[in-house]
């Protein structure tokens, strides 16, 4: 435990030193560690644990010293270089064997405790991320669960908020999370748009594609809301976004046997068997592609979620009750 604290202490000091160096330089070209503090500290700790005196960690530190050496004020430069040298010395003294006995991804381990509420501290909000296959009644379960827990339910609302932030016309953009990348590209990157419109979009979305700009804004919004309130969010890679930002949450994946889903889609959408089957396959493929593109993970793979649920085994109502029981939040208990 003492060693662990030491690693975190050093990592935080490296991050702070980088910030201080950047400030003293006065540059606007970007600092060495550009992510949020928590993420950067975690990745530095990981580097220290796996390769305490390794090449990668030294290279990261060298980037800070490269910048520090260019500070104009002698006083600031020598003060920060002293700090840098101290950190370097402490790293050299770290026990090399520590990384071998420690569980590396203990944050992930915490997420998988049997009582899911354990991963929330008093200050954390209850956030449930639900991924679902089309036709598994995931949306209905999510909505009913939000109602039962008396917390907010976000699906298209997040998307609408993003549009507002991006100052985009609603008609020109389609909800990527609902359709998948391919369809979006066909829908709003199709021909027929003038050069002026394209340039306007280029400026509006900071040179990014629309879907990327929307994803980044959705990420921002989800993290912001996670600090303010309890909620359930459907899809949008929210589970990975929150995990990357070290925000406690519960991730649930709801699915059902393919044939069962086909029957549901046939009834709900009034389609014949063949069309329903084709639609499901297409939407599954798009969801998978979208999730994989933005998270690098496999959509629907059980190892990526806290709970995987076969809604066909329980139906909507019982699914909600089971999840509530698991959360230890049953309102009637």
């Amino acid at each position, binding site marked *: 435990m003492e060693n662990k604290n030491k690693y975190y202490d050093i990592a935080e000091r490296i991050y702070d030193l980088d910030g201080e160096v950047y400030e003293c330089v006065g540059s606007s070209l970007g600092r060495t560690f550009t992510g949020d503090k928590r993420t950067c500290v975690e990745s530095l700790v990981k580097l220290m644990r796996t390769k305490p005196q390794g090449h990668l960690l030294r290279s990261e530190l060298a980037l800070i010293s490269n910048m520090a050496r260019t500070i104009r004020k002698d006083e600031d430069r020598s003060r920060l270089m002293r700090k840098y040298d101290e950190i370097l010395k402490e790293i050299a003294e770290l026990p090399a064997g520590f990384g071998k006995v420690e569980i590396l991804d203990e944050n992930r381990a915490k997420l998988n405790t049997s009582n899911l509420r354990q991963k929330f501290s008093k200050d954390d909000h209850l956030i449930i991320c639900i991924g679902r296959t089309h036709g598994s009644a995931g949306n209905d379960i999510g909505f009913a669960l939000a109602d039962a827990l008396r917390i907010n339910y976000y699906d298209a609302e997040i998307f609408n908020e993003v549009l507002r932030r991006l100052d985009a016309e609603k008609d020109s953009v389609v909800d990527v999370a609902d359709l998948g990348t391919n369809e979006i590209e066909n829908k709003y990157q199709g021909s027929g748009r003038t050069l002026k419109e394209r340039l306007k979009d280029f400026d509006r*979305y900071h040179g990014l594609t629309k879907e990327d700009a929307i994803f980044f804004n959705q990420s921002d919004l989800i993290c912001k809301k996670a600090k303010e309130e309890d909620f359930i969010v459907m899809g949008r890679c929210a589970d990975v976004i929150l995990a990357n930002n070290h925000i406690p949450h519960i991730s649930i994946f709801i699915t059902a046997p393919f044939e069962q889903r086909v029957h549901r889609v046939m009834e709900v959408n009034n389609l014949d068997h063949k069309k329903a089957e084709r639609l499901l396959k297409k939407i599954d493929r798009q969801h998978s592609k979208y999730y994989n593109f933005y998270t690098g993970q496999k959509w629907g793979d059980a190892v990526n979620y806290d709970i995987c649920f076969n809604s066909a085994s329980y139906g909507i109502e019982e699914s909600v009750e089971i999840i509530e029981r698991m959360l230890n939040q049953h309102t009637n208990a």
Partner: protein
Amino acid sequence: MEELSAIPVWLCIPFAGLLLSIAVMPLIKPDWWEKHQPLAVAFWSVLFIVPFAAKYGMFTMGETVLECVVNDYLTFIILLFGLFCVAGNITIDGEFAGSPRINTALFVLGTLLSSVIGTTGSSMLLVRPFIKMNSWRKRKSHIMIFFIFLISNMGGCLTPIGDPPLLMGFMRGVPFFWSLKLFHILIFNMIILLTLFYFLDRRAYRKDIAEGRKPDIREPGTHVRIVGLHNLIYVAMIVGAVILSGMLPGMSAFQNADGTVKGIHILGEVTLGFPSVIEIVIILLAAFLSFKTTKEEVRIRNHFTWGAIQEVAVLFIGIFITMQPALMILKANGAELGINKPFEMFWATGALSSFLDNTPTYLVFLTTAGALGFKSGVVTTLGSVPVKMLEAISCGAVFMGANTYIGNAPNFMVKSMSDENGVRMPSFFGYMVWSLTCLIPVFIIDMLVFFL
């Protein structure tokens, strides 16, 4: 200067030693190397100068060293210095987010710009916007590597302003706009390299996103604003100075009765020509005016430091001095190498341009080609050179400067500036792995398609 006969190959050892130091020392003794670079450069230079003086005498040694310092290094470093200063006074504000799409688009613009304001000018102007735009990303060194490939090297092939070897060709009678004939080769290479880059960058970009990295794009609109835009006038001044340095030596007002260029006599046959003096004065004036007319705040925001130019100035004076024996051997034996086909010219010029100064290398092979006795082709003062052969020599000299960090002046500058701004650039050999895997296959395709 008189040709020195039978230069022994062992005199090239200091050059190899210096290259090896540049490659290895930052890896094994980074702190020592950073502090003692001038010492290492002096060591290898002395190791060349002393045996050379012992073999050929003090006077010849003095002439050789001064010739390369005064006539090659001085104009080289002043041009680099001028563009470095002026570009450091232009800053682009705005919230462009580096993504495969915008990086690729800017590479297209930057590569073409290199032929308009030179590879050095274009590199210095665009390196900071690229670093800034991609600062949110973790995996970004490949972006700067392709920057060196395309903007710092290949882009310069279309005009004599683009890259010094082509200026030499222009001075030897190659028409000014002849290099535009290389457009189809450049476009061909750009398509291959940019496609490769796009997919590499896309993979890296996805990994960055998957790790939760994101640019700050909360506000709608990019709000691009260029501060210090008036410095483009000074860039134009510098480009003008380079063009003048290529044109004035051909004018009778700048020539002695024997056809040599008038100038300040220094030692023996070493003379600093007046065209070079004019070039230097204009460049220094542009740099001075740029500093005088731009607020310091702009340079601070640009993280303008002398580190990068200092490093290049120190290393390259050693490179210029120690590579003299290699260049002399090349000049003496270039014609006897039996190279007389375009693809041979392409590889020979290219391979040597990767490590030696590409300007004299270009000249050696242009002279060789001119002496082969062709009756048709591009008429130069060195003789007629078939179009395909001249294309091969030009492409070899310009493109293959990208093979190593020392192949072309801006390469090392881009590396140093990236190192100073949070981009972990590969080592000398690490960079060569990139050039071997990405560039050499493209050059092989070039050979098969254009030079066989």
